[in-house]
């Protein structure tokens, strides 16, 4: 997906590439819009999301994700660089690593917790061969 068109579509502003300055793209309009959207999403997550009952957690996570991309696009101008888009490549790989770190950690730790929580009876332990009947169990 070509992210560079997003700010242009969303702000109705021409976002021409600046050929002769090293200062990246972005106009007052795009900063104001990014700022307004961020405040709106923050207040939404703060006031509305907690009142949604069981949907509160997904609502907070989703508003955070949307705000993440709002700021990446409007403030950090992700995707608006000229080709080759190395910034975008590094960003995607980092996203993958973060997903592996976080999902992997939660997965392993919840498995461990399950193992701890499972009440094994003495009989089951004998059957598993984890403990021989000769040993005293506490």
């Amino acid at each position: 997906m070509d992210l560079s068109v997003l700010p242009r579509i969303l702000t109705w502003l021409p976002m021409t590439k600046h050929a002769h300055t090293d200062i990246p793209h972005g106009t007052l309009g795009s900063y104001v819009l990014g700022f307004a959207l961020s405040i709106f999403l923050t207040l939404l997550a703060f006031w509305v999301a907690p009142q949604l009952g069981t949907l509160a957690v997904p609502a907070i996570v989703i508003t955070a994700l949307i705000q993440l991309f709002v700021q990446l696009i409007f403030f950090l101008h992700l995707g608006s660089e000229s080709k080759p888009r190395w910034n975008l490549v590094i960003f995607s790989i980092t996203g993958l690593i973060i997903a592996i770190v976080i999902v992997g950690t939660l997965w392993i730790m919840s498995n461990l917790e399950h193992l701890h929580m499972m009440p094994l009876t003495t009989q089951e332990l004998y059957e598993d061969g984890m403990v021989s009947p000769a040993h005293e169990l506490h």
Partner: protein
Amino acid sequence: MKKHDTHEQVSFGLWVYIMSDCILFASLFAAYAVLHTQTAGGAGGAELFDRSFVLIETLILLTSSFTCGLALLAARAKNTVGVWLSLLATFALGATFLGMELSEFGMLVSEGHSWAASAFLSSFFTLVGTHGLHIFVGLSWLIALFIYLGIRGLTPKMSKRIVYFSLFWHFLDIVWICLFSLVYLLGSL
């Protein structure tokens, strides 16, 4: 003769650093996600976090990110006064944010909820404190920019430095959004 790195190389290098910093924060987030229920019989997030206080902190940091963007626009327009005003505003807002964060930490510690109290608080202080440390580094960077700006004025090189700083500062705001949502809002549900 020493060859200078081009602007693209420098900003790409900075971007790679920022992305690696994201991985650091992701690890701390993962540790917090695992440990946040381990309160050792003490108070959890729902009792300890002051939602409204943190909302104000969030809005302050968000505004500082915006004023930092304005500094970039002012630099492009070669508006020295605009650059000074927006960077000073960024500094003031960032310093206020850091002050509020430290006062929150001080309050928690004085009430006996220090990092030593439980695994939850250890991971909380590490995660939020690491972000605070980054903010401190950002503020020091800004002071260096002020000195340079005062001595040399708004040179093209200075404009580039503002671009590098703004990358870092916007990134800190994004990390804070994750902290605000995942630690404070989810924690106080």
